[in-house]
């Protein structure tokens, strides 16, 4: 069993210029856990992920990986333990899928060392797990958004991280691939002790898979807890401003929200 790690966010504030994107947000994820981050557009979800990965310096508070401040660890040291699947990857250069996935090994390689058999095996395993192995030699520029998204998940897995941060990993995927990716990360967290934080748009997908859910609104923590605690008609109306009915999933009893037409904020009933 590989060592489990934990990532803790202590009451951070993040600012872009004079705009506060995130304020007073705390969050913890331990190995073996799957935490969902929900919230409307512009509520600070991606900012939270960037700060967790050490790519953004919080103006207050701090982010620690097993007690060590990520901003003091150096990008390379963080990347050996924390992998990020960004929302929109774009490169104008036609790298093959294999090249892109192998780049996930970069933080593990020495300055003058080439990839070893072990690195290539890690990349191949990651490609097989995400169903992109047969695209290995295709240029990334010729793939569909859904395929690219799976390639980026493969690259993150090739990093062999202890913490995995996903920014809307299923936004471009069809139902089958959504379930595949979520099953995959759930399996990794359960079997290999990976700590996973996933920014999701789909409330019901989050309720199905996550151990805990964090709701953000205007950069603040609006709600946090188990799916049963967070996915309620009241919270959804507060956070998203839409009416919904929440009932148990017919198979596993997890809460599932069904939207009711008509916005509460505009008074249309």
């Amino acid at each position, binding site marked *: 069993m590989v060592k489990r790690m934990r990532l803790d966010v202590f009451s951070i504030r993040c600012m872009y210029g004079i705009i506060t994107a995130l304020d007073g947000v705390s969050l913890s994820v331990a190995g073996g856990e799957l935490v969902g981050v929900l919230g409307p557009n512009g509520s600070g979800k991606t900012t939270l992920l960037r700060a967790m990965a050490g790519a953004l310096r919080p103006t207050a508070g701090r982010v620690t990986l097993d007690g060590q401040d990520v901003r003091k660890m*150096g990008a390379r040291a963080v990347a050996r333990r924390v992998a990020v699947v960004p929302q929109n990857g774009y490169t104008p250069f*036609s790298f*093959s899928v294999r090249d892109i996935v192998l*780049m996930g090994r970069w933080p593990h390689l020495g300055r003058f060392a080439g990839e070893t058999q072990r690195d290539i095996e890690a990349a191949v395993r990651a490609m097989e797990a995400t169903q992109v192995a047969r695209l290995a030699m295709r240029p990334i520029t010729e793939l569909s958004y859904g395929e690219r998204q799976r390639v980026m998940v493969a690259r993150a897995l090739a990093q062999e991280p202890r913490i995995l941060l996903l920014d809307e990993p299923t936004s471009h995927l069809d139902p089958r691939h959504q379930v595949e990716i979520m099953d995959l990360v759930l399996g990794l967290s359960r079997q290999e002790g990976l700590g996973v934080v996933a920014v999701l748009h789909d409330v019901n997908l989050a309720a199905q898979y996550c151990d805990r859910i964090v709701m953000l609104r205007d950069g603040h923590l609006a709600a946090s807890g188990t799916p049963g605690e967070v996915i309620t008609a009241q919270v959804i109306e507060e956070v998203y401003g839409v009416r919904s009915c929440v009932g148990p999933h017919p198979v596993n009893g997890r809460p599932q929200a069904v939207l009711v037409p008509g916005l509460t904020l505009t008074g249309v009933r």
Partner: protein
Amino acid sequence: MTAPMKGDNQAHRDEDCSGKVPGGAVVRQGGDGDGKRRTMGPASAGQVRGAARAARVSGVRAPGGVRPVWHAAHLPLLALAVVLVMAVAAGIGSVHIPPAEVAGILLRRLPFVSRGAEPTWWPASHEVILLQVRLPRILLSAMVGASLSVAGAALQGLLRNPLADPYVAGVSAGAGLGATIAMVAGVPLSVLGVGSVPILAFITAVATMVVVYSIARVSGRLPTDTFLLAGVVVGSFLWAVISFLLVVSGDTLREAMMWLMGSLSGKGYAHVKMAFPYTAAGIAALVVLARDFNLISLGDEEARYLGLDPEEFKRVAILAASLVTAAAVSVGGIIGFVGLVVPHTMRLILGPDHKVLMPACVFAGAGFLVAADTLARVVVAPGEIPVGVITALAGGPFFLYLLRRRKTSGAL
């Protein structure tokens, strides 16, 4: 030999691919969306394993392969081609020296082949022409070509913009300013045995990079588009200053124009010695950083997530790129198109992997400029054309052809 056709467009693409796959084992099930890949029956599971195995073994000959199988094997071929180009170039000129003589003269210079005072079958004058006139110039053009190409590849990868090159970034204009000031002010051509014009050009080139860099820097970060804009603006400003200086100076106009259009005429071993340390150090740094260039070409954010600090890397890479550019411009003047066309062409042929691209640009750039400079000195002999004119004449149309050919795929 092709996959089941999904329509004219699809059939076309599959034909394109299958031509490069030995055995015609096309596994692609269609490149137009996720919808056609739902089924993962026994057959396609086998294909997945096949692809994985192929990827594991060598990274080539995988199903659906679009990239050429021979990209890494090209490097020794390119190196050999450069040596051949240099040998042929050494024989061409107002005095023709046959290839056997060229080989004989050069081999005799190698320490372990040297036979001392043994008689030779070639006239002594040939030996002087080859070793004292042509060889330094060939070495210099190889160095300049390699430098400009590698710098172009570096800037294109760094800025994720295939239009970037040392000239867009403003370095060349910076070097040009230094040279113009030296010529207009009548600075003595040689100080302590080293050309003063190149030294001044070198200083202003680096200074220009510092200016562009600090203009483009926004609160500790270096955004790509701002950097390109700053480079273009500073470059245009410096060109205006250069033009002004040239117009008011009058009598040195021709010399300055020749230099600014790029020319290696009248250069000797002194210039080779002067440029070599900078060129070698800069190229070595850029080749060693090849893997990092792959990461940065995914964008700052992704590079950061993969463990590369983008700001720190940009500083190092820009310094190395401006070093080689300044060295090249200070001896060869402003030779256009090499830094743009060579990396671009190599990327189209060999793919975007900088581990292959960087060394390929060293060889291809060297060979390209040696050939261009040879043309520059023989086409209107005994006169000379600035080599920058040759590179633009040869490079421009070729570049257009490549763009046209790849226009359909949209990839670079």
